[in-house]
């Protein structure tokens, strides 16, 4: 039988209400793990990015630790990180549910990527602005919140959507510890006897749809944020208007 014959013969048996329900729950799990992991990861990454700002953190050792954190979690493959979190939680006898392990691993990985992204955003603001604001006796945190962030969040936001997208794809590796997300669901359906063409094909289509929606949202956001007026208006001209 050719591939198409297999798909056509099995499709009515595959696309039943219960299988579709199972796949949609799995899709929800994928989204929950990646979105929750990204949210926590972004909070952690923001902390790491601010901790390495010399204007905010006078202690060199803490800055170095923040850089080390980023370099370590950037350079461990997600699969190894996931297995490490999984085995560490067993080792510490935490009995953490699988989704907690999945979210933790995604958050750790994301914190490194987010810290780099946020640092890049901070660097778009010239250091002279920091100096000016600090000279005017503003608190460093006020400078960050009132001067730097209002200018840099437009640079930070669009790549972060790309990061969520890449995490949606990375969570496919969480299937290895048995968390029921799309890939694991496809694997289970394959083991129930459905054709791998159909199960993994459906998984690919589901991932594609989610990523496509996210990527379109990211592009829309980028267009919207980059075409609007700049935050700081140019100083009023001393010359009379023509």
């Amino acid at each position, binding site marked *: 039988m*050719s*591939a198409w014959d*297999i798909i056509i013969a099995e499709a009515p048996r595959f696309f039943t209400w219960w299988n579709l329900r199972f796949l949609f729950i799995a899709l929800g799990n994928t989204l929950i793990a990646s979105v929750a992991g990204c949210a926590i990861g972004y909070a952690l990454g923001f902390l790491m990015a601010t901790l390495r700002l010399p204007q905010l953190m006078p202690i060199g050792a803490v800055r170095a630790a923040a850089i080390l954190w980023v*370099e*370590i979690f950037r*350079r*461990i*493959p*997600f*699969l*190894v*990180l996931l*297995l*490490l979190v999984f*085995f*560490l939680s*067993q*080792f510490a006898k935490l009995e953490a549910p699988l989704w907690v392990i999945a979210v933790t691993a995604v958050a750790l990985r994301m914190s490194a990527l987010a810290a780099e992204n946020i640092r890049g955003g901070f660097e778009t603001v010239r250091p002279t602005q920091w100096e000016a604001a600090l000279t005017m006796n503003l608190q460093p945190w006020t400078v960050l919140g009132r001067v730097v962030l209002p200018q840099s969040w437009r640079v930070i936001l669009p790549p972060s959507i790309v990061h969520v*997208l890449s995490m949606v*794809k*990375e969570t*496919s*590796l969480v*299937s*290895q510890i048995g968390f029921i997300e*799309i*890939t694991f669901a*496809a*694997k289970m359906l*394959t083991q129930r006897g459905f*054709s*791998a*063409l159909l199960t*993994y*094909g459906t*998984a*690919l289509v589901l*991932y*594609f749809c989610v*990523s*496509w929606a996210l*990527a379109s949202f990211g592009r829309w956001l980028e267009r919207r944020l980059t075409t609007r007026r700049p935050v700081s208006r140019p100083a009023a001209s001393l010359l009379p208007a023509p």
Partner: protein
Amino acid sequence: MILQYGQVWQYLPDFLLGALTALWIAGVAFAGGLAIGLAGASALSFGPWALRALVTAYVRFFTYTPQLVQIFFLFFALPEAGIILSPVTAVLIGMTLNAGAYLTEIQRAGFASVPPAELDAAETLGFSRAQTVWYVIAPHVVRALYPALSNHYIIMTLGTSMAAIFGVEELTGRALNANAISFRSVEIFSIVAVIYIALTIIASALLWLVGRWLFRVKAKVF
């Protein structure tokens, strides 16, 4: 429970050999991806609309779906269509196609960095399209994109860890084997994590040196 690294050090030489496997898998897939990417980026820049649509569809498909599921599809679904791949072949094909899609996107951005005057000059000199791509555009692309390309090579080196899922005995695969024998999971995977960190730092440093000497790229790779 205490961590006992003493039982695990014996696997270290085995792991280091596995790291070499990871490096060559990433290298082969990266080279293949670079070639696909150059062809894809040329097609996107100069091809007829049908070819452009085809390349766009390819790039979209491979960048919007997880590499793991792509390789699952190659490894488990293609046998039903009569194509049987060995684990290493399936991983290599999957990673190459995946890298090709990303590197098409990256190189297309590099094509835009070529000054139009040089393209005009190439046309005046009677260069063919292929010659223009190879002699005029490629050097620019390499220089402008060297940091992005080396970064992608690092990402791919990390990505080889998913070959373990298909039974390829690279670094993570050997770690899973050692784990199955000794049950010293935390010890083994922490060592493996450190090897990956060292491996990618060495690779980054080498890429930085190569970029410095061969292409005079001053941008930082780290």
